[in-house]
């Protein structure tokens, strides 16, 4: 377990919640989920001096950075947290998604909804192209290669014509209205709801994957890749899947982002984005979805909340991170799994 120099009273959010959750009935769980989801959907209306951000528009903060960070951190968590593949070039997928929507939307008039899917598809394709050779490497070497990939995508975007070069692309079309919700430039709320919906879909798919065979394969690879291979797990295939799924989420996030900001330049997609999203994953608790989502939301929220400190806010933000990583080096809600109870004859998980 974690060893920290600062001694703090035993505070285990994960186990407390876990105990409570296991004691609930099926109906209580459904109600809890519905209330939680409803809370997130009405969040833009809950702007107040205590809770919201005073210096910047709260709905806008909810969309970017908070919503975007959460969605991307969940995607990167599949790669870094679940499978143990250190990816420092995650921004590449974000950029590919953003440019897909920008170029196809501007030049060919493609609908946003098609472009999100295409952006994810292109990001996945790029993931396969990079992953096939790169995933033979491990550890530091893999990190360097992915870092290079992130930079290459940005530099290509500066140097070719169809991306608009260093000047970027402007006037990127907004999504057409859906269910009577109009996507307007001066109202970030629909975009926030869009990101929230995407995030919920991703969480739904993720939870199904990790409870089943792919989740076990990814964890086994993270724990000991050689042994996973000896146990009949096609490690290359599962690593590639993790990489590509993470990439698809980054691509989807990029398309949504481009449609909201309406103009993108290559400099938006620099190394800082990769580092920030990786920080979200580590800060929240590598490999724990709820930790990562919570951590990403906090890391998006604090710099905006601290805006009243003007120029020194980043200093305080850095201080906060240093303190945090000292107190909880494994993240806010660490990965370490709770013990389970299985039926001795069928091996099915039973609640205690």
């Amino acid at each position: 377990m974690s060893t920290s120099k600062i001694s703090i009273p035993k505070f285990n959010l994960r186990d407390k919640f876990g105990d409570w959750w296991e004691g609930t009935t099926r109906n209580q769980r459904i109600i809890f989920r519905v209330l939680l989801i409803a809370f997130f959907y009405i969040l833009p209306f809950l702007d107040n001096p205590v809770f919201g951000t005073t210096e910047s528009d709260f709905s806008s903060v909810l969309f970017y950075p908070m919503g975007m960070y959460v969605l991307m951190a969940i995607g990167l968590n599949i790669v870094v947290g679940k499978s143990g593949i250190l990816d420092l070039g995650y921004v590449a997928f974000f950029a590919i998604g953003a440019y897909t929507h920008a170029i196809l939307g501007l030049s060919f008039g493609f609908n946003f909804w098609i472009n999100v899917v295409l952006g994810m598809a292109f990001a996945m394709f790029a993931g396969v192209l990079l992953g096939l050779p790169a995933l033979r490497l491990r550890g530091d070497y893999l990190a360097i290669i992915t870092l290079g990939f992130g930079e290459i995508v940005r530099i290509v975007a500066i140097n070719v014509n169809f991306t608009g070069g260093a000047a970027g692309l402007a006037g990127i079309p907004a999504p057409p209205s859906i269910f009577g919700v109009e996507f307007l430039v001066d109202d970030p709320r629909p975009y926030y709801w869009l990101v929230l919906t995407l995030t919920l879909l991703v969480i739904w798919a993720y939870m199904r994957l990790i409870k089943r065979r792919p989740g076990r394969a990814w964890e086994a690879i993270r724990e000991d890749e050689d042994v996973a291979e000896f146990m009949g797990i096609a490690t290359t295939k599962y690593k590639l899947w993790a990489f590509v799924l993470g990439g698809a989420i980054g691509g989807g996030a990029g398309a949504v982002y481009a449609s909201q900001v309406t103009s993108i330049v290559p400099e938006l997609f620099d190394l800082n984005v990769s580092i920030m999203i990786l920080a979200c994953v580590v800060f929240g608790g590598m490999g724990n979805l709820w930790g990562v989502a919570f951590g990403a939301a906090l890391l998006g929220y604090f710099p905006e909340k601290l805006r009243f400190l003007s120029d020194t806010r980043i200093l305080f933000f850095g201080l906060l991170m240093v303190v945090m990583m000292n107190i909880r080096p494994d993240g806010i809600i660490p990965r370490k799994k709770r013990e389970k109870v299985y039926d001795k004859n069928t091996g099915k998980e039973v609640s205690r």
Partner: protein
Amino acid sequence: MSDRLLEVRNLTMQFGGVTALSEVNLHVSKGEIAALIGPNGAGKTTVFNVTTGYYTPSSGEVLLNNESIIGLKPHKIARKGLARTFQNVRLFGDMTTLENVMTGADSRNKVGLIGSMFGTAQSRRDEESSHLKAAELLNFMGISHRGGQLARNLPYGDQRRLEIARALALEPKVLLLDEPAAGFNPQEKVELGELIKKLRDAGFAVLLIEHDMSLVMKISDRVSVLDFGQKIAEGTPSEVQNNQRVIDAYLGVADHAS
């Protein structure tokens, strides 16, 4: 067709200028316990690493069920029926005991990633069978009470038992055990010996690396001795025990010159 489930022919393994194995011949048949012994550094574990596909041999052949497996990836070889344990226990520490065994059982299943995501009928069947098989194996190894604990928190003896359970979940034909009795007390060694005999009688071919000579001599049908990468003797336990080259390898040769 022979009943040799695993056969190693003229196996040579070189690392740069170092010859770890030189022209080694070995075989294990169905329902047989073959032991591989030798001093430290003789190349025993290298034999396991080559046969399981972790290393590609410099020359020679490895046949599993009369089919060459040279050049196949380790997971393919594992699925063809070769499972192993490790000298220093290597479990998936942050996974529960049952999940550890399930990773082996999963490799026998068909469901892929997309099927798992949408929860197809195939996926439900496969999940159920993995859970069931893992539970059976934990019962078989006598560690079902540990099922929900994290593998890293198990006592040492149970970690070793879990490794065997995980290997068995692959439904192998050949089982490679790398020093399974290391760190066991005499009582546990007796139990382990009984277990290995039970596996043999169930039709597995067992290839065993072990330093505990009394265990090796008691349960093995055939013993091969490696020294400096070469096989210096092979035979029944009593033949090997009385072989002068084996005695020299273990005890050293007396210096008559002085």
